[in-house]
C-alpha cells in the first residue's frame, strides 16, 4: 500500500531523466565548497560555490555518491563530505586541550575518508581519479589551519554548518564525483558490498526471492516537528516491537533496492513544495500516479488546502476544476465528464512524528475523479450565502481551523493554535467524505458563546457539520434549515428562535437610530442564554422589544415579522441541545443575512433607477 506506492513512484521518476531523482547508490546533497586540484594532487584553488543571489548564501544541491545517515562513530562519504572528513579541518578552541582533541578527531575522520577513496578508486584508470589519490597521499591534515588558500573561508568552516566540499580537477569542467568512470567505480564497489549482506530473503515489497535485505532504513527528512536529522518510517527501536528473534529491520524484510527506492521517493516528495502541505501537526504529501497529469492535479490539490500556496501558473485545467467546484457549490450535480484527469490514480499520505519515528496518520489512494467528487461535496456542504468577505471560494482547511482560535481585541487570532489532532481529522473527513470532527463543531459553538461573533465562516462550519452528519446518519430532520440562505418555511423551533433573536436585535437597533448606535445590544447580554435556554430568556426579550417597536420607525414591520416567526412555535423550549444550538446560530445568521441582502437590493435598485433616469 504505502511503501509500494512510494516505490512505484520512485520507479516512475527514475524513468524520467528530467525528474532530478537520484539513481541507485546516489543521493542528492548540499555542496558549499569546491576544491580544485592539479594533476599532481596539489590543492590549487578553493571556491565558495554557494548561491548568493538571495539574502543568505545557499549551498548548491547536486547528486552525489550515497550518504547514509550517520548517527555516531566515523563513517566517511565518498568524494563529497564535510570539511572535517575531506581535509581534516578542525576548529580552534579556547582551550588548547580541546583543540588537540578536535584535531585528533578530525585526523581519524580524514584517514577514514582517505581509506575509502583508495579502496574505491585504486583500479580506476582516469586522470582525475589518479590526481585525487595523489592529493590524499600528499595532504597533511595537521597543517590545515595554515593553508593559504583556506584562510578566507576559515571563519565559515569553524562555524561548522554546511561545510560540505567536493573535488574538481583544474582542467576539467565536471566535479570528480560527476565523472562517469568514477560513478561506475562507486557502483561496482557498492554492489560488491551489498551482495555480502548477512541476510537475504523474500522482499515484502516486490515479492522477489533471495534479495539482500536492508538492516536499517534511510531517514525521512522534512516532516514538521520531527528531528532535523530525519526520522524513520520503518524502524524497530525497542524490543517489544521485535518478533521471532529478528533485530532491526530484519523484522520486515525489504530488499536494499526497494528500501532505497521508497525512501528516495518520499524524501523527494517532502522536499517539493508542490507535493507537500502542513495541516495541524500532520505533514501531508500527495502525488499523482501519472506524470502527465501531475502538473495540473497536484497544484490544484495543494491550493485547496493551503491558501499560502500559489500555483505557479493558472492553467486552463485549474480554471476548469475551480469552475466545477463552483458549480457544485451552487447545488449542481457533478458529472464525470466535467472533471479532467478522472482516471488518474492519486495518493495522499499524512505523516506525523513520534519520537524518532514517523507514524502514518492517514493514507488515501484512489482516482483523481473520486477526489474531486469529495472536494466538491465538501465545497457544497460549506456553501452559505453571505456578503463577500474577500473569499468567494471554499475556505481552506487552514482557515477553518483558525476559526477555533481565540480572537483578540484587534480582531486577530491569539492564543494557542487549534488542537493538534483536529487538523488531521478534518483533513481526513474532507478527503474521505466522512462526517466532520465533532470537536470542530463544539469548539465553534464554544467560540460563539465566548465572544459572540457569528461570521459567515463560523455559520458555514456549523451548517457543514450538520449537513454532513444528517446525510451520513440518514437523519433528515434538519434538511429544511440547512440551506444556502434564509428559509422562512423551516419549522424547527431552534431555527425559528434564532431568526426571532435577530429580529429582536434589529428592533432594538432601529429604536436607537440604526445599527452601530448602541454599544451593547441584547446580543451581548442574552445570546448565550437565548441559544441554550430559550424559555428563560425570550419572554423577557419580547416584553423588552415592545418598547423598541413602539419607538422605532419600522416597528410595525418587525412586529409582523415576529408574529410570522412565532406562528410555528407553541411554547419556548426550556433547553436546546448542542445540535439545536447550531441551528439557532444558523437561523440567526440567515435572518441577519437576509437584512443585508434587502439593504443591498434596495441600494442596487436605487442605483439602477438613478442610472435609468440619467439615461433618459
Amino acid at each position, binding site marked *: 500500500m*504505502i511503501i509500494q506506492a512510494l516505490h512505484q513512484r520512485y520507479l516512475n521518476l527514475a524513468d524520467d531523466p528530467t525528474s532530478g531523482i537520484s539513481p541507485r547508490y546516489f543521493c542528492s546533497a548540499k555542496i558549499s565548497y569546491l576544491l580544485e586540484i592539479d594533476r599532481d594532487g596539489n590543492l590549487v584553488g578553493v571556491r565558495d560555490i554557494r548561491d548568493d543571489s538571495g539574502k543568505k548564501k545557499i549551498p548548491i544541491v547536486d547528486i552525489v555518491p550515497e550518504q547514509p545517515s550517520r548517527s555516531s562513530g566515523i563513517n566517511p562519504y565518498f568524494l563529497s563530505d564535510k570539511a572535517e572528513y575531506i581535509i581534516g579541518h578542525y576548529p580552534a578552541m579556547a582551550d588548547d586541550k580541546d583543540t588537540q582533541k578536535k584535531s585528533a578527531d578530525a585526523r581519524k575522520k580524514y584517514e577514514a575518508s582517505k581509506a575509502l577513496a583508495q579502496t574505491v578508486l585504486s583500479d580506476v584508470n582516469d586522470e582525475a581519479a589518479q590526481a585525487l589519490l595523489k592529493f590524499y597521499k600528499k595532504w597533511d591534515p595537521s597543517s590545515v589551519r595554515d593553508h593559504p588558500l583556506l584562510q578566507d573561508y576559515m571563519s565559515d568552516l569553524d562555524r561548522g554548518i554546511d561545510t560540505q566540499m567536493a573535488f574538481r580537477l583544474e582542467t576539467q569542467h565536471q566535479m570528480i564525483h560527476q565523472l562517469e568512470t568514477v560513478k561506475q567505480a562507486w557502483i561496482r564497489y557498492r554492489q560488491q558490498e551489498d551482495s555480502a549482506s548477512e541476510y537475504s530473503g523474500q522482499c515484502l515489497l*516486490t*515479492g522477489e526471492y533471495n534479495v539482500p535485505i536492508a538492516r536499517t532504513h534511510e531517514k525521512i527528512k522534512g516532516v514538521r516537528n520531527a528531528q532535523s536529522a530525519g526520522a524513520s518510517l520503518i524502524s524497530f527501536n525497542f524490543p517489544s*516491537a521485535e518478533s*521471532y528473534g529478528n533485530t532491526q529491520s530484519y523484522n520486515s524484510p525489504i530488499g536494499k533496492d526497494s528500501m532505497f527506492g521508497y525512501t528516495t521517493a518520499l524524501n523527494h516528495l517532502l522536499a517539493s513544495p508542490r507535493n507537500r502541505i502542513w495541516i495541524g501537526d500532520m505533514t501531508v504529501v500527495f502525488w499523482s500516479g501519472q506524470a502527465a497529469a501531475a502538473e495540473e492535479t497536484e497544484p490544484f490539490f495543494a491550493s485547496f488546502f493551503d491558501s499560502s500556496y500559489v500555483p505557479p501558473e493558472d492553467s486552463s485545467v485549474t480554471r476548469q476544476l475551480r469552475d466545477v467546484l463552483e458549480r457544485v457549490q451552487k447545488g449542481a450535480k457533478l458529472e464525470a465528464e466535467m472533471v479532467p484527469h478522472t482516471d488518474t490514480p492519486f495518493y495522499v499520505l499524512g505523516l506525523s512524528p513520534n519520537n524518532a519515528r514517523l507514524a502514518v496518520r492517514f493514507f488515501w489512494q484512489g482516482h483523481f475523479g473520486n477526489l474531486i467528487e469529495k472536494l466538491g461535496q465538501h465545497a457544497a456542504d460549506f456553501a452559505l450565502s453571505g456578503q463577500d468577505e474577500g473569499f468567494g471560494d471554499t475556505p481552506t482547511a487552514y482557515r477553518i481551523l483558525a476559526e477555533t482560535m481565540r480572537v483578540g481585541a484587534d480582531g486577530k487570532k491569539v492564543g494557542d493554535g487549534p488542537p493538534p489532532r483536529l487538523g488531521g481529522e478534518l483533513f481526513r473527513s474532507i478527503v474521505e467524505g466522512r462526517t466532520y470532527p465533532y470537536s470542530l463543531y463544539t469548539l465553534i459553538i464554544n467560540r460563539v458563546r465566548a465572544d459572540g461573533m457569528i461570521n459567515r465562516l463560523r455559520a458555514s462550519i456549523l451548517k457543514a457539520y450538520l449537513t454532513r452528519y444528517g446525510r451520513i446518519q440518514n437523519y433528515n430532520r434538519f434538511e429544511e434549515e440547512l440551506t444556502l440562505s434564509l428559509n422562512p418555511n423551516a419549522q424547527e423551533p431552534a431555527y425559528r428562535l434564532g431568526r426571532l433573536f435577530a429580529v429582536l436585535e434589529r428592533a432594538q437597533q432601529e429604536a436607537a437610530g440604526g445599527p452601530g448606535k448602541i454599544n451593547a445590544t441584547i446580543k451581548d447580554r442574552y445570546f448565550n442564554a437565548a441559544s441554550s435556554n430559550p424559555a428563560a430568556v425570550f419572554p423577557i426579550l419580547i416584553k423588552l422589544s415592545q418598547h423598541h417597536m413602539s419607538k422605532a420607525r419600522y416597528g410595525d414591520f418587525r412586529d409582523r415579522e415576529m408574529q410570522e416567526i412565532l406562528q410555528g412555535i407553541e411554547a419556548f423550549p426550556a433547553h436546546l441541545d448542542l445540535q439545536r444550538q447550531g441551528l439557532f446560530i444558523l437561523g440567526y445568521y440567515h435572518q441577519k443575512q437576509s437584512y443585508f441582502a434587502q439593504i443591498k437590493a434596495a441600494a442596487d435598485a436605487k442605483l439602477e433607477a438613478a442610472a435609468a433616469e440619467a439615461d433618459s
Partner: protein
Amino acid sequence: MAYGIKLHVWGDNACFTRPEMKVERVSYDAMTPSSARGILEAIHWKPAIRWVIDRIHVLNEIRFENIRRNEIENKIPVSAIKNAISGKSASLSQVVTEERQQRATLMLKNPAYIIEAHFEMTQAAGAEDSPEKHYNIFLRRARQGQCFHRPYLGCREFAAQFALIEPDSKLPPSYYAGSGDIDLGWMLHDIDYGDRMIPRFFRATMRDGVIQVPVFGERA
C-alpha cells in the same frame, strides 16, 4: 476437500499489522491467511491437523481509523525467566512509567470476513485420528461458540465474534461484490516455522471481494 469449512467472523475493529509498519502500526486492507489460521486454531486445533486457508471473503467496506495509546517498550528477557526458574534471583517486573512508548495504530473499522479453509492430517496423527472426527469436532465447537481462547482480528485487543456458516447455506453479501479485481499488494502469507521462521508473502488480489490464497510455499 470434502471437509472444507466456512466461518463468518466480525468485530468492531481489527489490525492485521503490516510487518514494515509494526512499530507505528498500520493494518493490511484485509485479513491475512495467518490471522485466519489463528482464529480457526482458537476454535479447534490438535497436533494431528493443520489448517489451510483457501479463501478469504471481505464483507464490509475497508475503512481505517487512527488511535494512539501508551504501550511498553521492553519485553521481560528470557534469561531473567530462566534465572527465576533455576532459583536465582531475577526481576520479572516491568515499570510502566519508565518504559512507556506512545504508539499510533491505523486500524480497520467494522471488519467482517468469511474464512474458507480445510485441514490436512499431519504426521502426528495417530490411529484414532480421522478427518471425519476432527471435522465434526470443529463443527460442533463452532456452532456452540466454543473456543480454547478468544479468537481475535490481528491483535489480541480486537476480539472476534464468529459463527459457523452451515455447508449449504447462503453467504452474506460482500460490499465488493461485482467490483472486479482490486490489487492489495504483497501480503504476509504465513511464517515458515520449518525454515528459520522466515516470513513468506503472496500477491493478494481481491476479486469481487474474495481473496484467493495460494498454497503455502508455492512460488508466485
